[in-house]
């Protein structure tokens, strides 16, 4: 038992989960609205967009790269898909196929620029963010799409359930997509050979190359996966917002990055888990939700988010340093 605790103590996820547990217990006692099924479903639905993108960014960070162009990718995927859906009708399968293809193509552009021209990923993605976003708003004139196909507007509900107060909830498109994308990401990272290669690439690029890994193919896969998640996320966001706005998503890229690094992923590559990312996202979501429920003005919520990020990364750095010192003595 003692051993288990010692081992857990070293895990970033353990500390995150502890903080979340304290928050959940406190909020459940202090507020009426927190521990309700409806609040849980609302939280999952509204954070699904950030969550799906976080899953994609996690894979990129583990591989040792970074991508911040995904909000522009999502905006383009959303716009093209909904234009086509309005024109040709389409169905669920084809809208997701189109959005994913757009995401894959734009992701591949990033990968080719990063790998073939040997430019650092942060610079490439800053450039492509501006290129993708600039071209999208230029071509569309920044016009919103308000009318979506009616089947798309209605969304998907499984296991719909109406409670005593006639509020209905169920497994909707957003929650389903969130679970599916996290499951796929977990499988990719933990149950496939490619996943191990991505960790190795981020841990030590030189070594991975000498072992004979095809780094170009891995980069293509990683940035295309980011594009794929951007495509999926863009559609569930459009479904939730019931409109498509080319200028709304860009600017959220650092929120996603914050969730992923709160979850313990390292910007140096090679480190990060799906569980950590889920917990990082949960911490941000529960905190923002909780602040509103206990009556803190929503104007102050961003301040607390920043404070938590700063405290969390500082605490992680301090404990990592202590660990290093401990290792020296051993």
């Amino acid at each position, binding site marked *: 038992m003692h051993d288990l605790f010692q081992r857990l103590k070293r895990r970033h996820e353990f500390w995150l989960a502890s903080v979340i547990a304290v928050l959940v217990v406190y909020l459940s006692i202090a507020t009426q609205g927190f521990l309700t099924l409806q609040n849980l479903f609302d939280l999952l639905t509204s954070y699904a967009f950030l969550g799906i993108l976080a899953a994609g960014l996690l894979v990129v960070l583990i591989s040792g790269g970074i991508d911040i162009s995904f909000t522009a990718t999502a905006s383009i995927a959303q716009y093209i898909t909904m234009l086509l859906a309005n024109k040709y009708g389409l169905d669920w399968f084809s809208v997701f196929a189109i959005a994913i293809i757009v995401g894959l193509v734009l992701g591949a552009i990033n990968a080719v620029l990063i790998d073939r021209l040997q430019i650092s990923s942060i610079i490439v993605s800053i450039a492509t963010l501006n*290129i993708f976003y600039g071209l999208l708003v230029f071509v569309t004139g920044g016009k919103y799409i308000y009318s979506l196909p009616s089947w798309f507007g209605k969304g998907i509900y499984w296991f719909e359930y109406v409670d005593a107060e006639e509020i209905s909830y169920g497994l909707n498109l957003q929650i389903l997509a969130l679970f599916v994308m996290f499951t796929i990401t977990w499988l990719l990272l933990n149950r496939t050979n490619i996943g191990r290669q991505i960790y190795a690439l981020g841990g030590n690029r030189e070594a991975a190359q000498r072992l004979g890994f095809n780094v170009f193919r891995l980069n293509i896969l990683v940035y295309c996966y980011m594009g794929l998640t951007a495509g999926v996320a863009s559609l569930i966001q459009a479904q939730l917002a019931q409109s498509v706005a080319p200028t709304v998503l860009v600017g959220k890229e650092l929120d996603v990055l914050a969730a992923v690094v709160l979850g313990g992923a390292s910007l140096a590559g090679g480190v990060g888990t799906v569980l950590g990312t889920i917990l990082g996202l949960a911490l941000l979501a529960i905190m923002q939700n909780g602040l509103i429920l206990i009556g803190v003005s929503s104007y102050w919520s961003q301040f607390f988010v*920043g404070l938590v990020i700063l405290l969390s990364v500082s605490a992680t750095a301090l404990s990592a340093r202590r660990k290093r010192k401990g290792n020296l003595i051993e």
Partner: protein
Amino acid sequence: MSNEPAYLTKGPDAVLMRLLKGLTHDVTNRRLIILLVALVVVFGLLIGERFFSQATVQSMAFQLPELGILSLAMMITLVSGGLNLAIISTANLCALTMAYIMTTHVPGAEGFIWVGWQIIAICAGLAVAAVIGLLNGFVIAYLGVSPILTTLGTMTMVKGIAIGMTRGNVLSGLPEPIVFIGNGTVYGIPTAMIVFAIVAIPVAIMLGRTPTGAATYMIGSNEKATRYSGIDTKRVILRVYLISSLLAAIAGLVMMARFNSANASYAESYLLVTILAAVLGGVDPMGGFGKIAGLILSLIILQVISSAFNLLNFSQFLTLAIWGTILVAVMAVPNIRRRLGFAD
């Protein structure tokens, strides 16, 4: 001839590069000059006389300083191997602090007290910036948190304070002398441009001629080696983030003066553009390299494109796309040369 570096003897641009040899030693700067001249010629042909008119040049000089000072703030942290994502939120919080004091205390005052309150306001803004800068520097240097994470946190927190205090409202109606900083001219030169020069020269001297500057470049190249060579790297990093923050505050002052107002979320789209400008100007995003001259050339290039597109009635979003394309193109030049067999 055999001692000449490859970029002077081989490749399609060798003749041009040789011509510019006397002007600057820096290879990146020569390429930027070639790019700038090419752009001016192309836009000159497309637009004609209007592109060279006094009004156009003056409007460029009005627009450049905001992005310029912010890019300086970003650049020095990049040179040290870091990054400061908090520059925009710092600029806005400082501008709000200054604007708050100016709009509440200045209107009732007269004479010396009137001037005094404006000076106090500016000092208060700088003090806020100093606190943010020291916080950034402390967490990065002494706690060992990566700059991108630290400043992501402070960026969110500082913006949160600005939103919390103002509830997202705009503070406007600033005193005359402040508005003059953003909109006035001295002998035809926009005041903001003069502020930019006053700020850029000491930063250039700091980076190029002082021990702190030398240490900043060394830390950017190899922090561990610098520390083992006996330099107090932590103190240098602390200073770098302090200066970056103070520069952001001055950018906030210029922005506030130009808009005659302050708000928690002005100029947010500039954040990534400052990195773009610095990297285009030859600053290595991994740290250790980059000169003010290159940054200024890159700012002029970005401004020329933006102003020309404006005259051509192109959307400002097309400007963004072209800026991104130019960044990729310039970054790709060394690699393309290598592939063509003209290694530098």
